[in-house]
């Protein structure tokens, strides 16, 4: 995936996060280094699942249960990377 597509995907994931978590901020304010557990984000397991379902719909992919359970998510970038992996795999037909 080229740099422009990478940026688009990251932006869309952030949009999903902002919507589900009702953060009321602009995506530019959601840097990939921000901790998912920071007061500004406050991710929990329910909202994580909802973000993933929304991302599935937006990108037309299905995320494996095992990938979700094994994920070690720490910051916004790690969530973007996880979804990017699934989208890329779909693109290469894996």
């Amino acid at each position, binding site marked *: 995936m080229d740099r422009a597509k990478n940026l688009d995907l990251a932006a869309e994931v952030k949009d999903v996060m902002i919507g589900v978590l009702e953060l009321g901020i602009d995506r530019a304010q959601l840097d990939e280094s921000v901790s*998912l*557990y920071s007061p500004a984000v406050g*991710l*929990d397991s*329910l909202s994580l699942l909802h973000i993933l*379902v929304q991302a599935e719909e937006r990108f037309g992919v299905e*995320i494996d*249960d095992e990938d*979700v359970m094994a*994920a070690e998510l720490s910051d916004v970038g790690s969530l973007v990377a996880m979804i990017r992996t699934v989208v890329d795999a779909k693109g290469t037909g894996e």
Partner: protein
Amino acid sequence: MRQVFHLDTSQVPTHWYNILADLPVEVPAPRSAPRANARTNGTVPGVDGEGGDADVEANGHGTPVRPQLPLSMYRQSIGRTRHVEIPGPVREEYQRWRPTPLYRASRLERALDTPAHIYFKYEGTSPSGSHKINTALAQAYYYAQSGVKQMVTGTGAGQWGTALSMACLPYGMECTVFMVRSSYRQKPYRGTLMRLNGARVIESPSMETEVGRAALRADPDSPGSLGIANAEAIEYASGRKDARFSIGSGENHVLLHQTVIGEEALLQMEKAGEFPDVVIGAMGAGSNFAGIAFPFYREAMQDHPGTRFLAVEPDACPKMTRGSYLMDHTDYSGVTPMVKMYTLGHTFTAYHIHAGGLRYHGAAPIVSAMYHEGLVEATSYSQSRVFESGMAFARAEGLVPAPESAHAVAAAIDEAVRAREEGRERVILFGLSGHGLLDLSAYEMHLAGETVDVVPTDEQIQASLRPLIESS
């Protein structure tokens, strides 16, 4: 000869029924736990007055969020697909004992001298002795597919813990069960059965978790509650990477899995040539009631608009008949997402009736929404009346109902008596969710005249609801 309506194994349903596809009312979405609760490691609200809990999933120390639910089951919880395919391996497990029989209770009819036709769907033939294994097997399958190695749960009377411990076996998963103290002591063979299945069984409240220690500090003689047991299980699972907390009561996906009961019963009532005027189920959190009722609700919407659906709860834990429709937590410590439900408040601890599976403080969100809109009815019974009904049923039909299931028996008897008084034929169907062969000590106490009827006061209910009302 008793009339029994059998199906063959090929008629085990291939799909679960998702009532969300047809419901004319909105079921409010769950709301995440307040962030203050989710970030503070500390103590248990309602026990020592401080906010916070032992939720380590988002504890402010960077511990990764670990979803407790496989994404597949979350999709089932929020989806609107009417018929959800049962995975092949799960259906094969179901076929080891399903379809369960549906009987006509002819002797009970004669004993009551009623013109009513009484039918019951009997889930006591399952390996665990109750309906709970219908969702336990499904959940174990999805968790195993997710790579989970250990299931952790809370159990009230023990039926759920028994079912989950059995369901883990085909997948080689470990099972840890926090069992409500009152039931742990009243029903020792439940614990034995779970241990026989390889599970670790812990009396709750326990010293193993901060939630349990706080509850014991507040009341060393606490009889425990399902809310506390679940909170302990959540804390225990959250600290272990390969373990997950599983629940078998009121969640949407649990209700979905239980619809195999009603789908089979529909075919069996068709064989009997009748459609029920009233469908009755005992009401803990709602999975048993939903399992028998939801498929009939679907059919009734089309062709039998007068059909009634009756949820039966204990006087000691009257969440529907005396609770309020509020956003509340599903566990005692307040770390779980909030759902809109009829509730007595998540800190409410019901008197330790023998029907421990009905002591849960809230009703399933879907059942609650239906009750709020008048689509289902609710009633409650005293413990002594429930045991009287259970004994009457046992003597007429030769099956000992679990104390939980005997609540449905009591309501079915009242419906049949009303039919007699009104001189009307009426078709009654109830779910006999499990046998009571591990509850004989409770029946023995009843025979000895030791059954106690305890009803919470309005003040007690208001006290546990007040924090919810004030924060809503």
